[in-house]
């Protein structure tokens, strides 16, 4: 009797979970200027990973890509990107929708993996003037010598903290917190039209 009630309750929960609708912030927004285009990216799986040196090899194996060990670098493999944020901190993005936390859960070595998929919103800034547009609010040197393709760093844009990844010579991925996404998009839109001028 109790078992049946529990099963019924579980069915109810899963039914309501299935009907939950995900409304990503800034969905579908984009802006095009002469030499640069800013576009919101589709939702992705994201994880904040912290681990000591001794656990890195096991975690790399479980995730299927080598966690980068040098500052300001990243590693990409099969839709999965790992960004070096600090000496024991990585930001992992999976655009293929695979479960990052499940992969890390298999590792017994000491680590902390926190799912932050819904915390962030990502934008792409692409075009010949992409670096100029981001430099409107980001004080880092974004020349190809200082910030080559694959370079990644936590930094700031205007008044807001972002994570910046250079995906191509003229394209960047900008990750920001969801509640700041409106500010970041507006900032980048203004910067794009300034950079085009």
């Amino acid at each position: 009797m109790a078992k049946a009630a529990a099963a019924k309750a579980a069915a109810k929960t899963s039914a309501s979970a299935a009907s939950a609708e995900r409304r990503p912030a800034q969905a579908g927004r984009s802006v095009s200027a002469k030499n640069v285009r800013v576009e919101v990216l589709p939702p992705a799986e994201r994880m904040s990973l912290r681990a000591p040196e001794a656990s890195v090899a096991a975690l790399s194996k479980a995730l299927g890509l080598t966690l980068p060990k040098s500052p300001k670098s990243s590693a990409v493999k099969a839709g999965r990107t790992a960004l070096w944020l600090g000496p024991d901190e990585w930001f992992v993005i999976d655009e293929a929708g695979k479960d990052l936390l499940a992969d890390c859960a298999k590792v017994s070595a000491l680590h902390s993996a926190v799912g932050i998929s819904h915390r962030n919103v990502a934008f792409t800034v692409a075009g010949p003037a992409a670096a100029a547009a981001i430099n409107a609010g980001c004080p880092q040197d974004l020349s190809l010598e200082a910030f080559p393709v694959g370079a990644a760093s936590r930094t700031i844009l205007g008044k807001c903290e972002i994570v910046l990844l250079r995906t191509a010579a003229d394209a960047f991925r900008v990750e920001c917190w969801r509640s700041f996404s409106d500010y970041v998009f507006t900032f980048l839109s203004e910067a794009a039209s300034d950079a085009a001028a």
Partner: protein
Amino acid sequence: MLLIRCPYCEEERPELEFRNAGEAHIARSANMAGESDDDFEKFFFIRSNPKGIIYERWRHIHGCARFFNAVRDTVTDKFVMTYKAGEPKPAKLPGASK
């Protein structure tokens, strides 16, 4: 804009990414409850505030988020050097005449 070298990122980054975190090399007593009021006051409130070279903690808060130590001249605002947290006070500063 000042460029500050982060010892963890191993490069110079713009000052906007950093935040000051007070004087460095202030050791917390292992037996805090046994501290006398005078000693606690010295530990908790009294800072050297020198004119010239100061040893400070800084945090690369909008970067790698790590704390580190920096040697700075309070007169010229120039960063003499930076080193990782936990490392001893440098015995000799680069460019020092003595």
